[in-house]
């Protein structure tokens, strides 16, 4: 079973997990994801790959603690083993020289967008990194991002950083300034990605989003992660996770993501009741 090398809390509710998985590390590309199970009772959780190290043979992901399985994951430590760590899954992000690319990340997406931004930088793009956090203390990997971006903005609701506007407003302000933006990549919660796509729609700037519908097997077998893109049903696990944000049926995605809302609460209550009576 794959061994955890590191598990640490980056900021409240957001954790990093680094797992020994040399086969996965060797094949990982920006934009791909892995599936992990915290224990044999857990769900198969898809997580974007936030980094990898071929020499060390490890793969890193950042996750938000939200339901039972992620709660369990956040309680594992270095040396613990997980029954499932499989990948890399999904298509890699398209990396080319576009010109100026805005990388907009929030929440777990700050970790997930890092390898994409790094690869885009290496491909010769000018990188404008936009990080969105609810509060200053929720920002992580600032140094890593500053090292690979030409411009770095943080918008935080308590405005310690650059501004307190929600990120699409910041995005719009940048666009208004008149600089040519060739591409926008956005990874984070569905709402963040949706609003980013809306912000660029009028100006027709290519906007790539890394979608996160509910998944089970992650290899195209079950169809749980299906969504509508440009009027056609796609499976996020094999056709994505990257899609053109202007073509996604967002309403359907929002709705499908909430499919198991009540079950998730019931599961969490059950687990908490058992472990913290």
């Amino acid at each position, binding site marked *: 079973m794959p061994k955890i090398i590191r598990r640490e809390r980056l900021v409240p509710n957001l954790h990093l997990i680094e797992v020994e998985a040399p*086969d996965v590390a060797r094949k990982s590309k920006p934009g791909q994801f892995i599936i992990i199970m915290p224990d044999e009772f857990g769900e198969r959780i898809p997580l974007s790959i936030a980094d990898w190290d071929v020499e060390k043979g490890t793969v890193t992901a950042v996750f938000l603690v939200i339901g039972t*399985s992620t709660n369990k994951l956040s309680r594992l430590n270095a040396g613990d083993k997980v*029954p499932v760590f*499989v*990948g890399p*899954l999904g298509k890699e992000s398209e990396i080319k020289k576009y010109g100026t690319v805005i990388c907009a990340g929030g929440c777990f997406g700050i970790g997930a967008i890092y390898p994409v931004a790094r690869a885009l930088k290496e491909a010769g793009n000018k990188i404008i990194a936009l990080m969105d956090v609810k509060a200053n203390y929720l920002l992580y990997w600032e140094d890593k991002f500053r090292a690979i971006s030409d411009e770095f903005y943080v918008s935080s609701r308590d405005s310690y950083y650059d501004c307190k506007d929600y990120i699409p407003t910041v995005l719009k302000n940048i666009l208004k300034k008149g600089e040519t933006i060739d591409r926008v990549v956005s990874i984070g919660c569905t709402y963040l990605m949706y609003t980013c796509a809306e912000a660029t729609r009028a100006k027709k700037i290519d906007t790539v989003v890394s979608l996160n519908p509910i998944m089970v097997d992650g290899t195209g077998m*079950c169809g*749980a992660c299906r969504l509508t893109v440009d009027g056609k*049903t796609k499976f996020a696990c094999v056709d994505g996770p990257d899609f053109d944000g202007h073509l996604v049926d967002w309403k359907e995605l929002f709705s499908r993501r909430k499919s198991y809302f009540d079950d998730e609460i019931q*599961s969490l209550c059950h687990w908490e009741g058992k472990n913290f009576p």
Partner: protein
Amino acid sequence: MTENKKTLSSEQKEELKIGFNLEWRKELRKAIPMKERMKIERQKMPERDPNVRNKDFLEVNCGLDAEAAVKEAQRCWDCANPQCVVGCPVGIDIPGFIKLIEKGDFEASARKLKETNSLPAICGRVCPQETQCEVVCSVGKATGIPVAIGNLERFAADYEREEGEVKLPKIPATTRHKVAVIGAGPSGLTVAGDLVKLGHQVTIFEALHVAGGVLVYGIPEFRLPNKTLQAEVAYLQDLGVELKTSFVVGMTASLDDLKVQGYEAFYIGSGAGLPSFMRIPGENLIGIYSANEYLTRVNLMNAYKFPEYDTPVFSGKRVAVMGGGNVAMDSVRIAKRMGAEMAAIVYRRSRTEMPARAEEVHHAEEEGIEFHFLTTPTRFIGDDNGCVKAMECLKMKLGEPDESGRRRPVPIEGSEFIMEIQMAVVAIGQSPNPLIPKTTPGLEVGKWGNIEVNWDTMETSMKGVYAGGDIIRGGATVILAMGDGKIAAREIHKYLGGLDKEF
């Protein structure tokens, strides 16, 4: 896709003849006259009460006891020219194992089975014997009721595992040839079992975290307990098969990567993992599952034990399952067990065209499943939260036969009606999973995405790369997948320089 008509090889015929002429077989044949044998009634498979079993996931069929098994074995005449063996896609020596049951040597019977079939407890449960070995049984032709070959196979395998001692066959010294088997489903397990017994080093790469393929994610506990399946997988591991789970060939490593790691021959048995949908409006509403997703949640992820297990699944009070195959039957019977008041099959043709096994349909009816024949949904209707609340259906009538020989359903105009549902499962079939074809340049695929093979050898367009099961067939049965595996194993052995006579 064309298949060969099955015939026995001269070696197989020779072996059957040797078995037939064994002294103890001659004595057994003499012990009970044929007339007496014909008087014995087919032993009924004990089943659990439909109204009890439709609320749990325990096995429906309980298995024959020793007394009944011996009696059933006595019904077999031990023909000189057994047609059942020809009917079996893997060519099991059927009279051989049945006569060992009649003799009372149940463990030897299981070993006899395992000479050709590494997975007898599985085949005894899920094979459609009624269309393969039992349909050609001489006893059946004479009396109308064939020997219960499947039930006997299951008996011998269960006896060995539960009451007896599982003995490993002698395995020749290693040939040092490395073979990669992709997919731990029925065909992959068969290839692995056959090749490891010839001394090859076999590794199975499985994408999911449990071995079994469709046997674990698809077929529910009440038809094939996971414990039984895992015991047969463990047997293969005891024989020396290496199993790597959570390894997606095509993603974690390509075929070429595996070549670099020293694998010389490949068998692709990656299955039909691409669900088909009906492409009607509203199909992405909440509460509409592909059969693959529904079965995977329940069987592989144990969602029926939620919240003990973390993966949830809907348990609608009114559930419609579209389709008429075994997968549809499994899905609808699960929905009933999950507490549905109405669990219904909605099938566009009539009862006679249903591809499901008669036994499964019968069990489903006993358990209170409704059947809506000649009905097809035209759209799903959702509520304000995006959850399915109804579907509009159209009545059909049967027209001219189509290319499959079944009468084509034709819609009856103006026959629309609304069926209120809270959940739907689409079980109308699946196509081959594209992951490996997409990531393996040079591998030729057909128009359905199926890998093209030479049906005599199962070899693909790439030398040393073989394929079988649903990845070449699209959506077939466990035993056909295993039959492909047997042919491929024989050919891989030849390819690796093995001698013909060992088969």
